[in-house]
């Protein structure tokens, strides 16, 4: 079992991905960026929904990590705008949220998200979580033992 303190680089697709992180919290941006770039992937940053839409159109990232609670255009509104635009509708979105209820997750998936990551998140496994949601690596599930 890999140590929780190590970055699970071997499980990641070796092609360097570009992730757009949209979050108004500078500290979360720093931590998420550090966690992802340590794996060799690249990060584009945006501190608001409006800026995020502009960056998504300009850079066409491989995925967008989108915070839910932001002032002005919140995460849900940003996701709807991205999905409504032909230039950005195919970029997969993964939400970052402090709300952990099943109803909240259902609502976010209904907006077209392909994953939901809860805060506080583990930055050392952030890239592999994104890869896992988007099918960029094989799954490695373990089952509990059962009586024969």
């Amino acid at each position: 079992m890999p140590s929780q303190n190590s970055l699970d680089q071997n499980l990641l697709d070796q092609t360097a991905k570009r992730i757009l992180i949209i979050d108004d919290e500078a500290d979360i941006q720093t931590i998420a960026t550090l966690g992802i770039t340590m794996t060799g992937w690249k990060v584009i940053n945006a501190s608001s929904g409006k800026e995020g839409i502009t960056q998504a159109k300009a850079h066409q990232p491989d995925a967008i990590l989108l915070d839910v609670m932001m002032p002005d255009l919140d995460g849900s509104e940003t996701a709807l705008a991205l999905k409504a635009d032909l230039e950005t509708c195919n970029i997969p979105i993964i939400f970052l949220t402090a709300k952990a209820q099943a109803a909240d997750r259902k609502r976010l998936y209904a907006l077209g998200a392909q994953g939901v990551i809860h805060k506080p998140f583990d930055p050392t496994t952030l890239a592999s979580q994104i890869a896992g949601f988007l099918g960029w690596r094989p799954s490695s599930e373990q089952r509990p033992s059962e009586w024969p």
Partner: protein
Amino acid sequence: MTTADYDNHDIAPETASPDARQAAELIAKNQQLQRLLMAQEGIAANLRRREHQMRLMIDALPALVSYIDVHHRYRFNNYAYELWYGLPYQQIKGRQVSDIVSIEVYRKMLPHLEQALLGEEVTYEVEMMRSSGQMVWASVSYTPDVRNGQIKGLFSLVNDISDRKATERIKDEFVSVVSHELRTPLASVHGALKLLATGKLGQSDDRGQTLLSIALQNTERLTRLLNDVLDLERIESGHLQLSPVACNALELVREATHAMQAMADNHEIRLAIAPYEVTENNIAKNQNSQQPLSQSAPSHHTLTPLQVWADSDQIIQTLTNLLSNAIKFSPKGSTVTLQVKPASPKSGRYVKFLIKDTGRGIPTDKLETIFERFHQVDASDDRERGGTGLGLAICREIVQQHQGRIWVKSIHGEGSTFYFTLPMPPTAHA
């Protein structure tokens, strides 16, 4: 001669003539009747006075009080009704409920009215419009009026609960904001510590690593506590959004054990699921005693897919909480066993889940209290193992909201078995 003469005890009726005696009797009876009439008038006056007092009291109530007959007509209403609907008493009495409230509200009220007129006491909440046009939340209670075994109508009590609803909304918003405002800085602290702990940003010496480890563990403990407090608040305030569906009980157990496998591995504990075995013995035990044992009952062991009516996310949370405790308090190398089986037929159509460990067990005097908030068997020991003291309280709330029951049997020093029951799906959904 007058009646006054016969009130005078000097006159002896036995010396009077027959006509005089008859007249005296008639006068006496007349006096008696007059006394009865005066008494009845007194009683009637008392009744009128009391009715007037009752009316004053009922009219002073802020709640809407009314009597509705079996044809859904108002037979009585208090002053609060007149204020609410802006209609005088005479324009409400004798009219159908559907004439007074809006059609939308009447549609919501109808099933409850019908239920009460079948003899059941009913309470529900509904949004209603006042004469001012303002929509307010109301709590409505119906008490059937049963006389000589027949339902004559119902007494209705309606309370404006818009203040309570507003408070709940404010509390919900507060919890939502607190949830975000606490979790976000916690995410930053936790994330920063996690990155430092990798060692890829510069190695610390042993003391530095120890301090990092302490800081990380305690941020994780804070996160768990925050999650549990918010969960419990949401559950206890009735805002847990249960979405029950027919679920395979064994699949719920498998998902929970899969989620806890990493923790079990870290503690060197084996997780095992014992399937419910369909054998001749337990077919006979669980069947209706009037039915004969089936000749074709299988003699080999098979899995019987047991279904429950449950919100799968909430039950998986319950199972993971119970598994977490079992793992934390079990000795290394031991096994935690899970099982699902039908509950005893006398308890209705329920499925029983059990989680058995071989840990230190729970003293008899704590078997009930451990399900309460922040009650732990040994607080200092649990703090070391990262417990918040809320996990079992959350499990109990979730199970009870599913109309189930949770309990524990334990032998101190040998281990514990936690049980909970969940209802089977309603027959149409089974």
